[in-house]
């Protein structure tokens, strides 16, 4: 519930006035000059109290009337879009499926995050935040049924404005052993995430397996030294999103992203936006180079998790003390993102003021009754 003129709600404090008046006025008792009080007996003190409350309907009607006036003056805003729960079925999020499609029965929504495999149309995994973002465009809460854990979707945790129920549907098919493998691998990724600095990340990669691992070289021309470090983190985030293992080469200008779970050597990762700044070039049998110039605007216009953009904004360079997993973006940023999707609110119809008429009549009637008797 939100209010057009919220300051009017302070007027609710004025509800104490009729209560005070009620109990003060009740103290005044009617007096009758009587011939003789010989045949009368004084009232017991005990029953005085119950009589004072005998006119509570009048007090109640006054309170209701007054609070209605105040609430109407505060102009309650109603949502034009009713609060609903959306049910979504995620077809899959594992790399064997090229796209994540979410269906609510009527529409099918596709989520892509700019990482494409060259042997599939898209080999991409959406950001959890992107997902939430889309789901919550016009809903209060969502239920997502998926074969995979929501961890595969996310970068780092953020505080969500809306509630999402995530149901995992067991997957029967053979190729989903991969999913299990991915889950095992997740621990490694977490180690990486817990690592303090980039150096730690490279240590977790077994040098002996280096040869077996299909690698993908991404070469970036970075002009700004600070921007370079952020891009390193960006790449790590991308790795987390897609459950890839990342090997950072010694070179300052190249990152190696390896997919050790895929037999195929033809996996490649590139920006979804083909017209984007990065260009992919094959430099060997299994080596590709992603090159280009990434600017802040490119990142912002991409479909990347919002907290990452925030990271980019803030140039968080102190990697030693930085834990990606516990990183919480400023709430301000998040709410701003949500506010854009907040349904349009509309003030209550002016005809609601007519409700005061019957309330007023009831109040007058009760008042008349109490003064008459």
């Amino acid at each position: 519930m939100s209010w057009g003129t919220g300051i009017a709600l302070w007027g609710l404090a004025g509800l104490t006035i009729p209560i005070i008046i009620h109990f003060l006025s009740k103290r005044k008792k009617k007096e009758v000059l009587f011939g003789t009080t010989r045949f009368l007996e004084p009232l017991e003190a005990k029953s005085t109290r119950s009589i004072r409350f005998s006119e509570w309907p009048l007090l109640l009607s006054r309170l209701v009337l007054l609070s209605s006036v105040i609430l109407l003056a505060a102009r309650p805003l109603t949502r034009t879009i009713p609060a609903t729960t959306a049910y979504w079925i995620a077809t899959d999020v594992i790399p064997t499926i090229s796209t994540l499609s979410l269906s609510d029965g009527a529409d099918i929504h596709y989520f892509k995050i700019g990482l494409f495999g060259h042997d599939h149309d898209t080999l991409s995994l959406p950001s959890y935040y992107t997902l939430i973002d889309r789901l919550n465009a016009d809903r209060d809460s969502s239920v997502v049924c998926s074969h995979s854990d929501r961890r595969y979707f996310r970068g780092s945790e953020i505080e969500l404005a809306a509630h999402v129920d995530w149901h995992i549907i067991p997957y029967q098919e053979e190729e989903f052993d991969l999913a299990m493998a991915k889950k095992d691998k997740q621990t490694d990724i977490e180690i990486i995430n817990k690592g303090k600095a980039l150096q730690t990340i490279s240590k977790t990669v077994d040098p002996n397996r280096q040869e077996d691992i299909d690698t993908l070289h991404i070469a970036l021309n970075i002009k700004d030294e600070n921007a370079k470090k952020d891009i390193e983190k960006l790449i790590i985030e991308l790795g987390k999103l897609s459950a890839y293992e990342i090997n950072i080469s010694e070179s300052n200008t190249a990152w190696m992203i390896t997919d050790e779970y895929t037999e195929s050597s033809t996996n490649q990762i590139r920006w979804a936006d083909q017209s984007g700044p990065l260009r992919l070039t094959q430099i060997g049998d299994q080596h590709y180079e992603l090159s280009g110039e990434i600017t802040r605007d490119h990142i912002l216009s991409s479909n990347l998790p919002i907290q990452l953009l925030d990271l980019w904004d803030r140039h968080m360079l102190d990697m030693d003390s930085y834990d990606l997993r516990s990183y919480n973006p400023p709430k301000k940023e998040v709410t701003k993102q949500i506010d854009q999707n907040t349904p349009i609110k509309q003030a209550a119809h002016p005809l609601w003021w007519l409700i005061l008429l019957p309330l007023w009549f009831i109040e007058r009637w009760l008042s008349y009754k109490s003064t008459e008797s």
Partner: protein
Amino acid sequence: MPTAPFILPSLIDTASKLEWIAKALAKGILLGKHSSRTLGQGMEFEQYRPYVQGDDLRQLDWKMYAKSGKYFIRQSTIEANHSMELLIDNSPSMDYQEGTHTKLDIAKIIAATLSYAILRQGDSAALTTRDQHIHLRNGMPQWHRITDRLSHMSTTTDPYSYAQQSDRMLIWITDLYDTAEAVDALIRSLQGPGTELMVVHIMGDREAELDFDAETTFIDLETGDRMQVDAPRYRDTYRERLQQHLQRMSELLLSHSVHYHRVSMTDPSPEMIRSIVSSYHQISMA
């Protein structure tokens, strides 16, 4: 049938207004009555009886003697003037108000009307209150004296200063809230040879039924005591107690052969006056 004027308290605050009201109310009881301006006994013929020694010679019917040659005394039912003394209890409890009138207002109107009726018939009337007294006289000037005194009358805590009289009809207009002992003493002091006493008891309907709200404070007009009472809850007990009191009073009055007539505090109407006059006639004819 003349309809009663709607009598407002402001209509009885001067003697002339009170007289106007009394005349209007008395119309109903005077209607059809042949009032005689001539005083004296034996105007209405009843019977003849033979003259015996010792009879007043003035009562001899000389025409009858001329016809029959015997002495006859002419007799009449009206042997004497009816003397009415209005005794108004103007104690503070008579200030009890119900509707537009206090009990005292009603007492004033009754007294003014009855005295008008009695004086118009050629009888004589007197007025006694706790603090005032007008001697027995006849004629309309007496009525103006009474109404003037009535219109200025207010309540007082003084005791009655009543001198015992004889041969008169006493009408005591009261609320009967005195104690039984006081009433007994008063009746004893009033009763003399040839006196008849009639009590006109004024009692309000709401007063009789204790028709008041819960948590009403009752102020005793006599003592000034304040008492908060849950009237609806206490109603039955009150009625019972009041009934006991009235029962005691009625026994007391009966033991003294005093006639009792109760009027309510509704707007004084010709019917109300007529009912009083009717009881009055019953007593005076007896």
